[in-house]
């Protein structure tokens, strides 16, 4: 009970994340983008794509965003450099256009259910932003708590009312469905 009270909000976040994943996916996942804007941007002559990406990151430093990885640095057919900065609040999609010496900036915000969906995935403890780091620790506690609650819940049932038929059928039904599905898809 105490673990449950200490993790009530997390359970709700996990539940909403699961429902968001169930009822919306793929193309519907993100709200429409805000209108794009342009900012002038001229990197030093001879700058590599890595350096350009770092300069763009340093200039705009979108909150909670991390630098673009090397693997994501590729010019498009027109010679422009697309840069995507993902955060739990949405995506900042940039396009460095060297011929015009400018950057096109498009922000695509996440809806609240998908913000919570993304938040529930934050478990890496070495987050750069302190708020995300705190949330990752909080999520860790919630994961261990979920396991503890599931096990202690079954224990409490077996210790208090093991002969309760409806609970037995419920347990057997859930277990059977899980095992059958596991076998069918493993």
């Amino acid at each position, binding site marked *: 009970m105490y673990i449950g009270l200490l993790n009530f909000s997390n359970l709700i976040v996990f539940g909403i994340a699961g*429902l968001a994943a169930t009822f919306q996916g793929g193309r519907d996942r993100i709200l429409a983008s805000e209108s794009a804007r342009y900012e002038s941007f001229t990197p030093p002559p001879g700058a590599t794509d890595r350096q350009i990406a770092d300069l763009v990151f340093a200039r705009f430093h979108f909150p*909670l965003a991390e630098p673009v990885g090397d693997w994501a640095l590729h010019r498009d057919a027109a010679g422009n450099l697309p840069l995507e900065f993902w955060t739990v*609040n949405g995506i900042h999609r940039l396009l460095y256009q060297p011929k015009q010496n400018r950057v096109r900036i498009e922000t695509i915000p996440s809806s609240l259910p998908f913000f919570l969906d993304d938040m529930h995935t934050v478990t890496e403890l070495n987050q750069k932003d302190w708020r995300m780091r705190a949330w990752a620790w909080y999520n860790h506690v919630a994961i261990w708590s*979920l*396991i503890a609650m599931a096990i202690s819940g079954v224990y409490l*049932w077996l210790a208090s009312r093991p002969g309760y038929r409806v609970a037995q059928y419920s347990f057997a039904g859930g277990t059977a469905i899980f095992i059958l599905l596991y076998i*069918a898809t493993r």
Partner: protein
Amino acid sequence: MYRLLRNTHLFLGVFAFLFLMMYGVSALQMAHNTWSSMKPTVSEMRVTLPADVPDDPRAIARELRPLGVRGDIGEIGATPAGYKIEVARPGAYYQIDYARATHDAKVRINTTGLMAVLNRIHHLRGAWHDYAPLNVWGAMIGLVSAGLILLGVTGIYLWFTIHSERAIGIVLLAINLGICVTLLGLVRTA
């Protein structure tokens, strides 16, 4: 009312036990990916399909289902000789290289262990898959997610009926709500 909610809490909890364990254990695996090996076992098989199989990648993939190549049909690519087709389910990933002229299919099979399967199940979403069991998983995940919220709400009610536990419970709940709402607010408004 108390009896109804107590039983609802019990039925939901014991029904969802393995699903919740799956979520918890796979979340730990994702948070600590060095704790378990996710390395797949790779094998290969060659099959000659009947000559009357239509020249359609989906039909070719379905023809291979009785041989164990079960799952969602993913990326399909045309090659000079035929098609490259990907098929995936939580426990296996197949790359099919089909030659139109000979009707030969070379299938590269990646199978994974328990932790990798749990990881993939954790990521399953929705009921729009072309492999039916994955739709059942999707539906169950929706039900368990709704159940989790109901478990939380009924749990709060059940706690509140125990007068001797109210004071400590309010403190714990306040700590939880304080941390959670503050962090969510700070991140959302960042």
